[in-house]
């Protein structure tokens, strides 16, 4: 190509460095070059209609990212040199980081792999380049998150083996299966699942709690990571919206397919966010806002406006949205109850909220907390005070699709568990909801293969038949260090000594700090 001007303007540069990367093949069939592009039934008539509002080109991308990286690592170094971990609100906060590092950071890496794979499958150069950049972003996020949190690993337990745990630990099968489900789908479903449903519709519910939570609790390393990732996230959200509008504008036959994916991935994302809800309401010593408030702002209001915009394409809000909206009053308490009782099998600590925290929960959840959850929590606090800290020594029933224990309750009766069962090819399958049951019915061949941690233990595939062996040998959780109650844990004692308090001092609940055995 002949270049007239020495210096290209942005528009030309984008054209040459992005759209010009595509060509019409002459001696190979397009179908052979892009074999995965049409099996999902999505019809694309004109890839040139793809819009990229950022018009970022690879040369500029490297320059920006390198600058961000330099600044970020300078702050990490300063944080480590100044013993930044001593300035957090309370060591209980670090448990939120343990959840993030084992549950979320591996998903960033899975996203990198996912975008690298599906990006290759689009015959449109605009979509290919957007996926390529996002793949590199996600790899960087995975690495920078690990570097942001690695300093805590020198001072607190449970952060030592995130990648190993992600593939094995019972509750981490929830985020893992979410991404495995998306990555084993076709390229358009992957983008609808991750770019649209997760990055566009639900991302604020993940990012805001963790990054604002970090800011509110004095964790400068994680806050700085958040700022460094923010401009990438803006691009990711844009890709999410663009892909959905592009698919819907290309052909009307795409509408019902996309609607089914939106229904599925909204529900799967909502279930996954139960973990974030409990983190927000229970694991942050300094609270940002309640999960219910976050859901109202970031889903009901923002999501509501978005689905109004998409109405003109024939898209309606996700199925079972009413169940999800009602669940905002319950899920964080239900999830925390679950982790509290299975704390002997987690890489982080749990505890009962202190009196002021219980009162905060009553105020934030006036219709549910006192009625359904406070009696349970006060009973557990009393049991703990009397030396009988409650642990559930059985294993839970898991949902075949979301893989969360079937802990959720019916919208019309919060005292009854929501449970669905169907028989498929002579075998019984169990679900936490109609949402998950529908997903199974649409693609049973996929979900009959689910690697459910409880059943895997029972089948003898986890290096032992008793929980203790599974937890230590298979999960790599150090018993007595990483798991159990927070009060009296090595982390708690270490924090007290950092703050110059004696570890046999009475804690806020007036109990002596001794470790209960499960």
């Amino acid at each position, binding site marked *: 190509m002949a270049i007239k001007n020495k210096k290209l303007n942005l528009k030309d540069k984008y054209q040459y460095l992005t759209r010009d990367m595509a060509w019409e093949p002459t001696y190979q069939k397009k179908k052979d070059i892009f074999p995965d592009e049409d099996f*999902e039934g999505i019809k694309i008539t004109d890839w040139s209609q793809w819009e990229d509002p950022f018009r970022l080109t690879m040369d500029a991308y490297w320059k920006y990212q390198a600058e961000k990286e330099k600044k970020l690592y300078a702050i990490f170094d300063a944080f480590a040199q100044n013993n930044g971990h001593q300035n957090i609100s309370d060591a209980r906060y670090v448990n939120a980081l343990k959840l993030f590092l084992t549950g979320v950071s591996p998903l960033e890496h899975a996203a990198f792999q996912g975008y690298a794979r599906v990006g290759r499958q689009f015959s449109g150069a605009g979509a290919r380049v957007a996926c390529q950049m996002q793949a590199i972003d996600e790899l960087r996020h995975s690495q920078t998150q690990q570097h942001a949190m690695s300093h805590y690993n020198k001072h607190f337990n449970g952060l030592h083996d995130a990648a190993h745990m992600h593939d094995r630990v019972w509750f981490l099968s929830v985020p893992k299966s979410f991404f495995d489900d998306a990555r084993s789908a076709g390229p358009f479903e992957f983008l609808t699942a991750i770019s649209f449903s997760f990055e566009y519709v639900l991302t604020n519910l993940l990012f805001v709690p963790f990054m604002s939570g970090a800011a509110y609790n004095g964790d400068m390393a994680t806050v700085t990571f958040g700022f460094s990732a923010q401009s990438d996230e803006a691009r990711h959200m844009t890709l999410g919206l663009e892909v959905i509008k592009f698919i819907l504008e290309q052909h009307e036959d795409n509408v019902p397919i996309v609607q089914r994916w939106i229904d599925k991935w909204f529900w799967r994302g909502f279930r996954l966010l139960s973990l974030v809800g409990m983190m927000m309401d229970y694991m942050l010593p300094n609270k940002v806002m309640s999960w219910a408030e976050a859901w109202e702002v970031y889903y009901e209001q923002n999501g509501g406006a978005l689905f109004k915009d998409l109405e003109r394409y024939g898209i309606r809000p996700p199925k079972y949205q009413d169940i999800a909206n009602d669940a905002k009053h319950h899920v964080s308490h239900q999830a925390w109850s679950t982790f509290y*009782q299975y704390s002997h099998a987690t890489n982080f600590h749990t505890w009962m909220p202190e009196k002021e925290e219980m009162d905060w929960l009553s105020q934030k959840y006036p219709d549910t907390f006192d009625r359904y959850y406070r*009696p349970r929590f006060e009973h557990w606090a009393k049991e703990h005070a009397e030396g009988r800290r409650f642990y*559930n020594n*059985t294993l*839970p029933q898991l949902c075949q699709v979301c893989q969360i224990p079937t802990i959720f309750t019916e919208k019309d009766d919060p005292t009854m568990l929501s449970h669905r069962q169907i028989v498929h090819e002579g075998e019984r*399958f169990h679900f936490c909801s109609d949402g998950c049951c529908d997903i199974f019915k649409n693609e049973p061949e*996929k979900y009959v*293969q689910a690697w459910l941690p409880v059943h895997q233990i*029972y089948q003898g595939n986890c290096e032992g038949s008793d929980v203790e062996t599974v937890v230590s040998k298979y999960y790599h959780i150090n018993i007595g260090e990483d798991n159990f109650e927070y009060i009296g844990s090595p982390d708690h004692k270490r924090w007290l000594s950092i703050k110059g308090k004696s570890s046999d001092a009475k804690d806020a609940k007036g109990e002596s700090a001794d470790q209960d055995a499960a």
Partner: protein
Amino acid sequence: MSVNALYDYKFESRDKVENFHGMQVLYIYWPHHLMFCSPVAVMVSPDMTFGDFLEQVLKPAFASHPDSAKADFVKAEWKLNDEPFTPVMSATMKDSGIDHKSMLTVTTPGLDGISGSGS
């Protein structure tokens, strides 16, 4: 419906009964006792009698609840896979129609959890 795939997509179920070495999975749900966050998953032998199951599996699983001392599980209301069910203490799991991944729901009227909250 079925899955949309690039090839003939057919896989064995990962949790078929053959994978449990002669045992089977059974779920037990005690409504209005949500201190136990979900139904519990246990492994039982198809030849275990219902009476043994009650004494050796169910009661220990729920023993930590303050209601468990007051609960008469023999006279309780039972459901097997959402259908009414009458347990026979001497019958085995197999004879009772309790197959792999069945769910038993046991309701104890008058016992509504901690302070009547359903917990």
